[in-house]
């Protein structure tokens, strides 16, 4: 995975709470399993509307009122949104779509648990900030800079060449910070410790677990 570098861009404001993963990627795209190319399905039902053309044959056009379709936010790498972002289905496709679209960081007052975990597996940084600060950022028109190393989100007023007009601080568990900063794959990283883990298991008796396996030849109910 690509290491997370400081990102600065205009921030896309999605002023909604409880955005669920079905809004991020609607179910009809779950059948697709390639991890690249999901960006075009991001927020699909909000981003596009179908125009008449008969069932199945309808074509879709961008909804001009949806924020992602606004030229101002083209190329934005930061999404700012409301509470409980990523709730609902556990589909990892949601993060795949955000990453593929180009979002490297999502800023919200809170995230749903499974979505939050999935972000780290795909190089997307979820930043939790105070609700008031997020509200300010939703209304803010300038650039936002997310610096994971420093644990800072900086706001730059439009047109100003001075330093940031506001700096918000955020915390991140050290392990997760490392994973993103070094672009490590969590699976690969944990496997590095495989020897230590087996040793720990041997010592703690976990290796000889008394838990029975499911019977291997369990017949299916007729």
């Amino acid at each position, binding site marked *: 995975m690509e290491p997370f570098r400081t990102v600065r861009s205009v921030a896309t404001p999605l002023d909604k709470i409880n955005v669920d993963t079905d809004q991020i990627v609607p179910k009809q795209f779950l059948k697709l399993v390639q991890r690249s190319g999901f960006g075009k399905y991001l927020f699909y039902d909000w981003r596009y509307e179908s125009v008449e053309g008969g069932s199945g044959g309808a074509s879709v056009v961008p909804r001009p009122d949806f924020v992602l379709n606004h030229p101002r936010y083209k190329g934005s790498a930061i999404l700012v949104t409301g509470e409980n972002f990523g709730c609902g289905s556990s589909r990892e496709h949601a993060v795949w779509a955000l990453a593929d679209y180009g979002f490297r960081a999502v800023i919200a007052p809170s995230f749903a648990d*499974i979505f939050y975990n999935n972000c780290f597996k795909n190089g997307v940084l979820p930043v939790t900030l105070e609700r008031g600060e997020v509200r300010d950022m939703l209304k803010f028109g300038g650039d936002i800079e997310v610096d994971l190393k420093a644990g800072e989100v900086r706001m730059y007023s439009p047109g100003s060449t001075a330093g940031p007009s506001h700096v918000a601080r955020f915390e991140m568990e050290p392990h997760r910070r490392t994973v993103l900063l070094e672009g490590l794959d969590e699976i690969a990283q944990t496997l590095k410790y495989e020897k230590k883990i087996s040793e720990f298991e041997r010592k703690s008796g976990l290796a000889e677990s008394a838990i029975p396996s499911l019977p291997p030849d369990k017949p299916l109910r007729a």
Partner: protein
Amino acid sequence: MNLVERILARASGRSSVSPDDVVFAKVDRAMLHDVSGPGVIKVFERIAGQGIPTDRLWDPDRVWVAEDHFVPSAEKISAENIARLSEFTSRYGIKNHFRYGMGQYGICHTISHEEAMVMPGDVYVGGDSHTNTTGALGAFACGLGHTDMAYVLLNGQIWFKVPETMYFRLNGRLPSHVMAKDFILKIIGDIGTDGGAYRTMQFGGTGIEEMSLEGRLTLCNMTTEAGAKNGIVRPDQKTVAYLEERMSGAGREAAKVSLGRGGADYSEPDGADSDYAAVYEYEASELEPVVAEPFSPENTRPVSEAPSVELDKSYIGSCTGAKYEDLEAAARILKGRKVRIRTEVLPAAISIYRRAMESGLLKIFLDAGAMVGPPTCGACCGAHMGVLGKDEVCISTTNRNFPGRMGHVESRTYLASPMVAAASAITGRITDPREIVHAA
């Protein structure tokens, strides 16, 4: 330690754990379905490219696979995914693969209890957010993303931050017109869709002791809608009887179901209130039928105060609302009556379908004019088989009503119990089951 802490301590080889501890826990059971399975296969392909061995699973006998979201295959891509899933299970020697059209199959969370795939005290993870359902058997059950599931399949372990536990005490038995679904909707309305975020929601008290396993499954299922890490109910003799009956029914060796692991007894009474981060008290006699209005499970109000909305459809299906008792409750209302709106009944597993056929429930549904479909996640996740069009309004026994969840982004879903969905099917508007029963 409370129940979840004891399970996670056991699974991580520690003598004790506390909330916020990060533990590396051994997984007892893992589940994939036709959406998370292909996702995991993709992760396997990617990490194999990085030189990480993916040629064998940690224990194929602890892994099981369901086909549920897009089955019977909705179109050609889902058919190909099912074929990939079959290749995967045969390549890795996973024998517990519940294939549609080949005996028992159904929604993964329903299979977890119908086939006794999970035991009290287990750490059970699945590639689906409603994996929480199975905590009703007294297990630590939670959903994971594809990458985490891939990791579990290769290593049999995963890290967890030990969650705080919110304890919901139900005093007294639910009235006959109130179902577990009403209770959990009421709770979600009270605490909100992130009210349980990264916490355990445990259910106890006399009302839960009296509640059937299937009612408990409904409660734990929708802890997901409150954002909870997991839901759990202390296992008891009812749990044992329920699982033993299903194991022998499935032709498995009639094993004794144990209430403990490694010397622990998870049926020990729930501890003092101080074992929990928060305790919520509910009086069963004060509860009444509830609906959640569009577009969030937390938009709840009593059916008696529900707006008069013209419905287009009643949907009785899903892991939340199509277990045997759910169908039985709906049939009690529909018996001898006719539906006024399109009504779909989709039993959540073949074993339930069979029982409903043998006991005559299917005839009641058909006589009422409803259609009976095959087990599938179907329209619950807006996949196929009864999805909603623009402006359509549905009352549904499912678990989510976010915009577009069941179809068009401008369709509207009201979440309700099977009794309310059945009563509403008869009148064509949101209806309290007492209205139907008293009118008889």
